[in-house]
């Protein structure tokens, strides 16, 4: 059986920007995959090429074994998508918008009722789009994407700009969908929690390239023993050289906030060494937090920047 999505050596440029530079990826059937990267990483361009909205300059894209060329109508019937920002017609009701989009798939009222229930908008069925909150609009967009029981769901930043509650509501709908195991999904996001919570395959993307991919465990496997120590010192204005000179391991130091980070792979032996080092340098710790390594840390390691920069 062909994979849900195959992308082979795809390139795409706009004027002076090389948005996607040689991406390969494969999403198996029933898998949920995240394209995780900061703004401008090339996620939207990549997902829009998978959606058939943009054509790659080079490379091949197949969905369930079918390239876009010659299969557009068939593929439009089996994919569901939500763009990064779509403003539906302001003065149509939720019901009318769903009915309109349902008609494109020759679907009737029953499916619209199911979708209203699925995305929790039954009580808003008569409300005009213009009167919906941001979260409700995103749920409507998701509902439209799910109308045709898509075999492949492509969502571009479905929760960007939403508050934590609205974000959780979208996640809950997608997690229910995941249980059905009939739909494969590609989601772009710059929230690592979203990728961790929803997806079993994560691709870290920056500057048009896939930097690393795998399950969350695989991505963090090499570093599972590593722990991050974040600390602040009771001494403002210290330079990096002052803090890290003679340290037994590398210290990242933010002199403006008097905040430092060290990565320890043997915490039991190294933590006492770290305290001893601070004591010798007569540096006094104000706060300290010990945590596991995250995707954000991995991204920082790979690119030197944080996901939200």
């Amino acid at each position: 059986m062909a994979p849900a999505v195959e992308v082979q050596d795809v390139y795409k440029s706009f004027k002076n920007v090389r948005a996607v530079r040689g991406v390969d990826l494969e999403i198996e059937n029933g898998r949920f995959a995240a394209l995780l990267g900061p703004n401008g990483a090339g996620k939207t361009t990549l997902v829009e090429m998978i959606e058939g909205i943009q054509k790659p300059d080079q490379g091949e894209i197949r969905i369930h074994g079918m390239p876009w060329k010659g299969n557009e109508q068939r593929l439009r019937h089996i994919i569901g998508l939500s763009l990064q920002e779509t403003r539906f017609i302001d003065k149509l009701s939720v019901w009318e918008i769903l009915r309109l989009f349902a008609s494109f798939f020759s679907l009737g009222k029953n499916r619209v009722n199911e979708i209203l229930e699925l995305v929790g908008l039954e009580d808003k069925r008569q409300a005009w789009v213009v009167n919906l909150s941001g979260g409700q609009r995103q749920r409507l967009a998701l509902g439209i994407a799910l109308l045709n029981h898509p075999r492949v769901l492509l969502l571009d930043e479905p929760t960007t700009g939403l508050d934590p509650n609205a974000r959780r509501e979208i996640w809950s709908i997608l997690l229910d969908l995941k249980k059905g195991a009939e739909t494969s999904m590609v989601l772009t996001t710059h929230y690592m929690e979203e990728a961790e919570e929803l997806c079993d395959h994560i691709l870290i993307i920056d500057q048009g390239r896939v930097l690393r991919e795998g399950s969350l465990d695989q991505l963090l496997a090499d570093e599972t023993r590593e722990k991050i120590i974040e600390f602040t010192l009771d001494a403002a204005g210290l330079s990096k050289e002052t803090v890290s000179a003679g340290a037994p391991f590398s210290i990242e130091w933010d002199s403006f906030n008097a905040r430092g980070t060290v990565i320890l792979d043997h915490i039991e032996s190294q933590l006492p060494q770290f305290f001893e080092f601070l004591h010798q340098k007569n540096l006094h710790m104000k706060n300290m937090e010990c945590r596991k390594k995250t995707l954000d840390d991995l991204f920082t390691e790979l690119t030197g920047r944080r996901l939200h920069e």
Partner: protein
Amino acid sequence: MSNPICHHQFFHLVAAHGKEIIREPAVIFWGIIFPMLISLGLGLSFTQTRDVVHHVGVISDSADAGQNDSKIHAFLREHGQKVSEPTDHAPKYRLTVENPQLGDTTFVFTQTDWKTATVLLKRDRLHLIVEPAGGDIAYHFDPRNPDAELAYLKLTKAISGKPVASPEIAGNIKPLTVTGTRYIDFLVPGLITMGAMMSCMWGISYGMIDKRSKKLLRRMVATPMRKSHFLMALMVVRISMNIIEAVLLFIFAYLVFDIAVQGSIAALAVIFLAGNIAFCGIAIFVSSRTATTEVGNGLVNAVVLPMTVMSGIFFSYHNFPDWSIPFIQKLPLTLFTDGIRSIFNEGAGFAETTIPAAILLAVGGIFFSVGLRVFRWH
């Protein structure tokens, strides 16, 4: 809703476009009430018997006492009515020549000096300057100004004691007030065609550009929606709205001004449809690539403004230079307006309007096809 048509995308696209329009209250005002107000305002202004006022400057040099015995001053003292407290404190006389057929003419004479009279003439607050010249009167006016020339002709008649039209001649004057010959008969067909053009151009072009900028077009074509259904639905809704607007304007003009269609109703329907199709096609072409409403504004204005001015909506395009008339007559709005106007006022039918209707259909078809070919959905 078991009828399969109710599940059909074309039905839902028409319903969606239609609701989008009628749920905008301003549409009712700008599409229906505003054209009625224009026809009412212009219709009343140009169909009532007009009372005309001509402003005349009379040169009076107080240093020359002899002037006050001149012919013009004697005439004013004898026939004019002195204005007791003029607003600008200049001595004034008023003289009204009554004419029940053509409307009354009132002359307002302002006694002033040359310098002031020249300034007032430049400001168009005087049509004519008169001054004593020996035992007679000298008239100063711009011969290229029809108002000034008319004031001169009427004033010389009044001063010579002749009526504006002698009883024999007056008997021959038959003011044209029958349907089809009045200004309102000229105006209403033009308002109907201009309304259709504006509605198509702004409604379709602006709506499309707005949907493109909101990425709604991009979202819709990412479904199995047929692009032709989307555009056809847009045209069907817009033309239906234009029919309603035109019929309401016609009923209003019929009730208020007794306007009538003297030619073939079927030919009227055909050319109206052809004109609408022409402008729908042009609108789709104009909006085929633009994604910003600012650029869209400019493009739509570039199409509608020249035609509104040149195509003889409010006044005959024969006032333009002769060399430009053949060009003006080929503009879609001119073809549309001339066709509709000939059916309204000249009793024309298919014989006279088939060719313009066919040209309008061809214009619509060509612009639609080219527009669709270069259309940017994303």
